[in-house]
């Protein structure tokens, strides 16, 4: 198991390298640069040239990239052009808020999505099932930002029962989390429903009933664990999506998270922040994927046994191939 985790962590390196290369290249070729940004229109060409030299912006593309990556490895993502603070600090200040927002969104959609999916599947074609499936269709088709704006108009502007922006009290969290989590709730609900529908038809469910097991336990103990793999997969994808969705929610609800930081940075051509932000999001998404992979092994003994004896099965497989 440990070896497997180690291997998976090693596999994250090329992914992160790729992401960094892409984002760095994009930023490199975007018009406008730090010198214009920092010095403003009033500065002379010489002053700008001087600053470019200081910031090593005149070096060749590859050298700049390597310099940047050297910094990244030491935890130095550069300096924010606008605040002159290290990018790492800026990001880490905001990161917890975004993670909490996305995490709360995933948790909420897991709670509601899985519960509704289970009930829908066990009472297929009932009124609840029809309502829930229509809701989920609506949920996946409503754009997040539109929902966010509607929620603000209804709950904050018209009824004035919930605050429209910020995150200072628990009440403040309600609207952002709902607008973030709606899509995911619907997606997870649909996945749970279809996965459960497939599992409850299996023979081992009948075996459980034949033992005299109560219906609730047949569903929770026998069916749900077997339906979990696809649910975990989408939940993991949703977390990645919500990290991106946070950009929307943070902008609409003016929340000081990574998303808002990056949107502001893009407007100001504050490239170090954008690069650092993208890297951080890519990194956290990889971590979530890693956790998902470990969870697979946790819920399914068949996957677990592949990891525990990787040597034996692999050599056996290879032997068969060479013999053939």
């Amino acid at each position, binding site marked *: 198991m440990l070896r497997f985790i180690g291997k998976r962590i090693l596999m994250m390196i090329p992914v992160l390298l790729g992401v960094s290369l892409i984002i760095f290249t994009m930023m490199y070729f975007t018009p406008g640069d730090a010198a214009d940004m920092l010095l403003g229109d009033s500065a002379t060409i010489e002053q700008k040239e001087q600053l470019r030299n200081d910031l090593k912006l005149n070096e060749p593309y590859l050298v700049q990239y390597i310099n940047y990556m050297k910094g990244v490895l030491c935890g130095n993502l550069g300096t924010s052009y606008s605040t002159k603070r290290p990018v790492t600090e800026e990001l880490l200040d905001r990161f917890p808020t975004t993670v909490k927002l996305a995490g709360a969104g995933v948790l909420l959609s897991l709670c509601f999505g899985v519960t509704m999916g289970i009930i829908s599947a066990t009472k297929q074609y009932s009124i609840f099932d029809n309502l829930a499936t229509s809701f989920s269709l609506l949920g996946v088709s409503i754009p997040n930002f539109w929902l966010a704006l509607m929620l603000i108009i209804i709950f904050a502007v018209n009824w004035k029962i919930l605050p429209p922006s910020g995150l200072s009290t628990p009440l403040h969290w309600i609207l952002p989390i709902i607008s973030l989590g709606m899509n995911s709730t619907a997606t997870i609900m649909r996945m749970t429903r279809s996965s459960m529908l497939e599992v409850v038809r*299996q*023979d*081992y469910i*009948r*075996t*459980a*009933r*034949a*033992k*005299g*097991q*109560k*219906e609730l336990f047949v569903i929770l*103990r*026998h069916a749900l*664990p*077997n339906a979990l793999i696809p649910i975990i997969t989408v939940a993991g994808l949703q977390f990645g999506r919500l990290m991106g969705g946070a950009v929307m929610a943070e902008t609409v609800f003016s929340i000081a998270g990574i998303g808002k930081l990056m949107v502001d940075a893009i407007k100001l051509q504050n490239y170090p922040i954008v690069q650092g932000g993208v890297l951080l999001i890519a990194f956290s998404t990889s971590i979530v994927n890693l956790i998902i992979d470990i969870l697979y092994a946790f*819920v*399914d*003994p*068949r996957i677990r*046994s592949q990891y525990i004896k990787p040597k034996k099965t692999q050599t056996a497989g290879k032997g068969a191939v060479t013999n053939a």
Partner: protein
Amino acid sequence: MAEPILEVRNLTVEYTSGKSIVQAVNNLSFTLERGEALGLVGETGAGKTTTALSIMQLITSPPGRIKSGEIIFEGRDLTKLSQSELRKLRGEKISMIFQDPMTALNPVITVGDQICEVIHLHEKVSRLEATQRAKKMLEMVGIPGERYSDYPHQFSGGMKQRVIIAIALARNPSLLIADEPTTALDVTIQAQVLEMIERIIKELKTTLILITHDLGVVADICDKAAIMYAGEIVEYGTLDHIYNHTMHPYSIGLFGSIPNFNEDVRRLKPIKGLMPDPTNLPKGCSFCLRCPDCQDRCTKEKFSPVEVAPGHIVRCVKYIND
């Protein structure tokens, strides 16, 4: 004469698939006495599994539905019991070994825990004691107790079938329904598993319904046999009745299609034709289309079963004396 443990009366089960209705079991009746072993024989689609699931009250609805009939088990009609009363019977008094061992075990629960579950459901015992009992059950079916914590995927098909048997017998039920317990297994394992079932049944004095395609197996294990065709029992009796005084044309056909090495038969004589479409059964005798002795009236009316000798029941025009 011993008291009957199970009495099935006029059982009719239907499946709705789309617009058509599959008449899987039609007006089926039989009686089983305590300690007896009944072989339920019939070709595929005859409604054997459906009959078994009806006794367990585990027909999935929709699409299935017990349309009419009574299933009297130890004096109580199972079709009228509440779910919670049925749960007390399932696994405790009536258990079933399912047809396909590959899919009948839950892949994410250890085999030991799957045996423990049925013990816990019907008896208040400590975890430790349940574990020990489950281990003992494993050993009884020939699997070392140390494999308690293995998962089904670590077991071969034959071992899985043994685990299923252990689950079915863990609470020492009075009625065991074994639905083709060996069809999914290879021939050598088949013999072992059957021998084991026979031994345990004798030991625990369990009443058995053995569902199979194999008349040889019935001859080995059972006391009585019922030949099913298109959802009906066409012939029912003791082994002597069925094997030595075969009467129904379908049963005779079945024996004709078994290779017999004592006689010098060049070819098997398979029964010509196919089973009638269960969504559209013939109005008269369901076997009439394939019957070598089919008469005019066979296509027109249904015959009630006739008791040709004490305990030997046949449903055929040839034995109706009017």
